[in-house]
């Protein structure tokens, strides 16, 4: 697919992907990568300049009404009437989706997303997490087979995110939905997606399962060394120089050093030996070990961080 806007911006440049039924598929990329444009083309709001989109085997442009009934979209923005109550919004969208027995469906979803107690509260008085859950509820009222989530965790605290993830995962399992998820948060894409496409500048860089991506493009694990905050810069440079003698590609940032390793146990013991040998132990605040993330994969592929 290609999309060139009337102002000449080439937002999507030859993106090609296939989503399997029943999987959670993540579109991961920085802001402006072309994720929202791609999604808008998938739901028929934008016409591709070149290329075509088929959903459940049918072209979205020719079968709009039929396909729309099978798609639920939770946009990035809170898309509901803020002066209406939670229930009034649900009732409105259930009617617009022509849902039969909508009361039962509304009750189901209110229970799933813990909105039942606030059903008569005005939507503009909800917390950010509650608004996000209402946004998602409205996308699911007509029991769509394909759910498209655009930045579903934007502005949510970790606790609310956890509630949302558990709800979405339970939904996928119980109703066998296909989910396409666009996000710039690698944690979201990593935790929820079965497969991920990494997009940058409107192009698909790679498509695979998160673990596979990390395995293919990462270095296994990272040892992080945090030095004490009051350490003088020449002392920090001394530590860095000693570490670099063994691991030449060590990276440093803000009182910390990162060593990428494929054999964490061996490298950790080497590091401890080195610190002991040069009497540097008392200058270290802590040493930690973390797995490679999709962020590392993105950096490897583009040379930039996701948020840059």
């Amino acid at each position, binding site marked *: 697919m290609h999309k060139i806007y009337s102002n000449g911006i080439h937002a999507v440049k030859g993106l090609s992907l296939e989503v399997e039924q029943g999987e959670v598929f993540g579109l991961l990329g920085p802001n402006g990568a072309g994720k929202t444009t791609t999604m808008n083309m998938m739901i028929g709001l934008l016409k591709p300049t070149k290329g075509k989109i088929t959903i459940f085997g049918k072209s979205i442009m020719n079968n709009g009404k039929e396909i*729309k009934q099978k*798609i639920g979209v939770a946009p990035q923005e809170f*898309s509901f009437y803020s*002066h209406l109550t939670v229930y009034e919004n649900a*009732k409105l969208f259930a009617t*617009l*989706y022509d849902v039969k027995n909508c009361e039962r469906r509304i009750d189901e979803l209110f229970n799933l997303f813990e909105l039942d107690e606030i059903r008569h509260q005005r939507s503009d008085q909800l917390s950010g997490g509650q608004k996000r859950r209402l946004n998602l509820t409205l996308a699911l009222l007509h029991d769509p087979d394909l759910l498209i989530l655009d930045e579903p965790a934007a502005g949510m605290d970790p606790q609310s995110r956890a509630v949302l993830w558990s709800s979405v995962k339970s939904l996928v399992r119980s109703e066998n939905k296909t989910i396409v998820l666009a996000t710039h948060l690698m944690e979201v894409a990593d935790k929820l997606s079965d497969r991920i496409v990494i997009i940058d500048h409107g192009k698909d860089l790679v498509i695979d399962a998160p673990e596979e991506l990390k395995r293919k493009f990462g270095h296994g694990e990272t040892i992080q060394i945090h030095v004490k905050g009051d350490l003088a810069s020449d002392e920090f440079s001394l530590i860095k120089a000693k570490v670099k003698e063994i691991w030449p590609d060590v990276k440093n940032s803000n009182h910390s050093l990162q060593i990428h390793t494929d054999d964490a146990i061996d490298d950790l013991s080497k590091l401890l030996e080195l610190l002991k040998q040069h009497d540097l132990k008392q200058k270290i605040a802590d040493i930690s070990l973390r797995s490679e993330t999709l962020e590392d994969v993105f950096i490897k592929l583009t040379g930039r961080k996701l948020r840059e």
Partner: protein
Amino acid sequence: MQHKMLYVLTISFFKSFYRNRVAFFFLLIFPLIFVGVFGIAFQFSDPLNSPIDIGIINNDEGVSNGVVILDPFQGKIVSAIRFSDRFISIIGNATYPNNTTKLFNVQEYNSSNLELAKSDLENRRILALVVIPNDFSIGFLAALRNIFADDPLLQNITKNWEGYPEPTFSTKIFIQGDQTLQQFSIASTALRQITEEFFSLGSSKVKGVTISTESELTTQGLTVFDYIFPGLVIFGILQTLSAITTLAMTDVESGLLRRIKITQASGSTYVASMILSQLILSLLQLPIMFLTGVMFGFPLSSRLWYGFVIAVILMFGITGIGFILAGIAKNSEAAIGLANIISVPMAFLAGSFFIVPNPELKWTAKLLGGNTIRVLDFLPATPAVRLMRTILLGQQSIKNSWFDLTLLSTLSGIYLIAGLMTYSKRHFQSQ
């Protein structure tokens, strides 16, 4: 059929509106305050009390053919007289009630200068034109014969009214002018009173004359507020333009329209529900405005219903303009800015507060069977103000207003269709 979707969307728009205190204030309370302020300021005021420029063409040929002519103003018998001279003098000396301000600045035209007088009328150099017919004095003699028919002394002097016209004879005075002008209303009312007093000589009998204006006048006793009120109603409706534009842009900018577009609701259902919700608001707003007007002394009559209909038709046109703005503006701030830039000047140009020059497009007469469109008539508020004023003040019947009513309906329809097309093209088609 999407009637259920139409219903829930309309109700949702309406609920969103009335729960939004700012919008509620501007749409319902603001016009109320506005009418109220004018009401308080003008309800006890007299009509205008500065001299009104009028023109008179005197075609009166007088009477002189050997009849014994009674001149009741001098109390003597004359051999020849032109009663119209006295009539014009009375008009020239007439003053406003309870003060010495003259009612009229009179400019007399020769009979041969009818075209000049009409041109002056058209260009508002004079605001009313009185045409005195050639048989004015004969008509006055008929009036005298009627008034003094039973007076034996005058029967004797006039040799039993020999040479006098039959008592049934009647002359006809024409008063011409723009009926939408409050000065014309005042002038024509006063001229009618002066003429009737002149021909009845203070008695209750008014014979020998008929006065022709374009319609019956019921403007006696109206205050300045009464003249202003119809324009205020139109101004109130024009103020809803920014509310409509806001409504049409809010869902676009919040992303709600994007969500609605991927439901089963069609674009026409969505737009129709916005129009319907707006109509419901008008049905609430207008009675409040009319009631406020009546509270401040505007005459309560069945004609208010016609005013209501005119206002609703205009509302469709204003809704159309709102959709045009929402269809062309870059964002809601620009759209609302445009709405404000348009609505206030439109109210002024349409004559909501005072009459502005509105030249006729004479070439339209050929196309419209003698009716002409004026330059500012392309703004839907212009025929609406004209209709509202002439009908509510009883200066013209609904039957005689069919042209303006047709013009208003046509313009409203055109603006509404253009608005829907512009809005749909911008916001409903996949790009």
